[in-house]
């Protein structure tokens, strides 16, 4: 076991895969010589050289096009889009090309590639550098979507993503980069499409993703002190969605809360609520409740931002109000 940051886990995860498989390559802006704007890719250029760790111009479409063309001709690229907000400048490549090509070609073309990106708020970067955009990807058929909440999951899910034969959108949370966690030594490989129950409780189930997971866990501790015992599920993977684990957890407690960093409309929580009510209506004790960022762009000031994204207090208060 080693204690390491989420940030260092990214570099270790990428290194693990570059080491293992010669066909893995890594490209993006400032990722090589500079070690990445979040310092999450340091040392890789030195170790693997400029052919396999390639600094690019500010050309997000060209980056993803390069990844896609390489993936269909024998490589397994990992592309970095620095901030997830910039997915918007290359969304055509993602939503129209990468996601649809296997289907449109009746399976002739495989695209084993990973798009890593820094997602989420909390760093006072303002509305254009703080969005939680995993739902954009979830809404597009043909993309797998992952968002790890711990350093160990970063490595394991990244390895799974690189080894997966399909395109995977890998949302790293910027607010978690400096978070530390214990990580087993040696190779780590996890499984896509699996949620994790982080805490078991009998009274209600809280679903959370990425930076909302530690908040949900803290909230659960507070709630426990107030006599409310919550199950907390780390959703981890939006596509494929581990409905088995989710439905089981919700059915056991009868009450569902989602904690979503995204602005409300069309968040992953909405989708899960619609699945839950369709499939386990009779197991529900009451209406599923969503805790989300209000449907606004994110303000930049620290005071405002903290009051916008779901906080431990907001989670606790919402759950108590419903459960009591």
């Amino acid at each position, binding site marked *: 076991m080693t204690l390491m940051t989420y940030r260092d886990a990214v570099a270790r995860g990428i290194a693990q895969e570059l080491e293992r498989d010669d066909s893995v390559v890594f490209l993006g802006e400032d990722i090589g010589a500079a070690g990445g704007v979040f310092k999450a890719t340091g040392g890789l250029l030195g170790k693997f050289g400029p052919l396999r760790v390639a600094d690019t111009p500010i050309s997000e479409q060209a980056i993803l096009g390069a990844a896609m063309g390489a993936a269909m*001709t024998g490589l397994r690229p990992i592309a970095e889009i620095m901030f997830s907000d910039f997915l918007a400048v290359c969304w055509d490549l993602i939503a129209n*090309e990468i996601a649809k090509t296997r289907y449109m070609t*009746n399976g002739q073309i495989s695209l084993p590639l990973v798009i890593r990106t820094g997602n989420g708020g909390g760093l006072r970067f303002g509305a254009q550098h703080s969005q939680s955009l995993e739902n954009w990807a979830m809404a597009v058929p043909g993309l797998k979507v992952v968002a790890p909440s711990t350093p160990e999951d970063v490595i394991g899910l990244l390895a799974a993503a690189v080894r997966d034969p399909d395109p995977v959108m890998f949302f790293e949370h910027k607010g978690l980069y400096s978070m530390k966690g214990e990580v087993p030594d040696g190779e780590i490989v996890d499984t896509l499409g699996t949620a994790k129950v982080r805490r078991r409780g009998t009274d209600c189930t809280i679903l959370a993703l990425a930076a909302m997971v530690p908040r949900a866990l803290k909230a659960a501790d507070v709630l426990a002190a107030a006599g409310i015992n919550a199950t907390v599920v780390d959703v981890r993977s939006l596509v494929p969605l581990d409905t088995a684990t989710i439905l089981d957890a919700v059915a056991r407690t009868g009450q569902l809360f989602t904690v979503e960093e995204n602005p409300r409309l069309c968040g992953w929580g909405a989708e899960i609520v619609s699945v839950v009510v369709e499939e386990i209506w009779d197991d529900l004790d009451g209406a599923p409740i969503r805790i989300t960022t209000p449907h606004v762009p994110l303000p930049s000031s620290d005071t405002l931002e903290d009051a916008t994204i779901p906080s431990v207090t907001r989670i606790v208060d919402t759950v108590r109000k419903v459960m009591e």
Partner: protein
Amino acid sequence: MPTPTDLGLPETPAFRHEVDAETELELYRSMERLRRFEKRAYDLFLQSLVKGTSHLSLGQEAIAAAFGASMRPGDWTFATYRGHAHTLARGVEMAPIMAELLGRGTGLMAGKGGSMHLTSVEHGVMGSYAIIGAHLTIANGAAWSAKLRGTDQVAVCFFGDGTTNIGAFHEALNLAATWKLPVVFVCENNQWMEYTPIGSVTAVPRPAADRASAYGLEPVVVDGNDATEMYGAAQDALRHARSGRGPVLMEALTYRHGGHSRADPAKYRPAEEVEPWLLRDPLVTYRAHLVRKGVDEGVLKAIDEEVLREVDDATESAKNAPQPDLTLIERDVWADGSSAWRN
């Protein structure tokens, strides 16, 4: 017959390589295949047998044929929605293409892609892309992979004049030049972006060639209606890219005989513009050229007949082909063959 200069073509041909007799006939057959296939596709569109849409390369065949005849088996084609020609020119059979246009189960992609997305990985046709610009960046990726894997494969990417004004064009060219990728960008300047004359929306007269220097590249302008010239240009471009000297940006001047898509009668184009170009029909002029050079007309006729038979057979087989199996709808989103988004 209008002179090249009348049409704004380069004054002196720059790519007159010697073409051997066998290749000449191959070029002729290829253009004939493209022409006959697409004319049939148009008829079938009017009969509502071809569904959705269809974009023909009638009049532009010399470009696809020249590259088809020049590319090696491992090389990659990246085409657009106007991709029948480029797909056929790499040797893909007509029957599965025709069946795809008719949306049948025997189609090249079993009816899942349609006219705008023809793909045959087996033949190096790595897809036809229907959103302007993206495939230039994707062609780069294939070229990058050739470079990293140390093969001498070349990616050839076809697109239109209108495409030079979209952002992805710029990003792709800059990256290709900076990374010295083995990719050939072929701009088929047919003078029109759908229904709008390219000159009215473009800041320079030559939408591709006048941008080459912005990427440190040489401007290359070719008479895209002259198969000999196009063949020479294709040879040169492929050699350049294959030898590690980086990308080529080629502008092939040509003209669409018909409309942009579907049944568009292209009435918006002035007759003074259309007519001289029709006179420089690449197939007609190449045939005349071969005859002038002494090729037996009987040989050419035999080719014509073979091609016609191929088109007829493809038509029959497509018409008689079954509809695609409905289970295909939820197949092949993922590499495991499924479309499951949950467990």
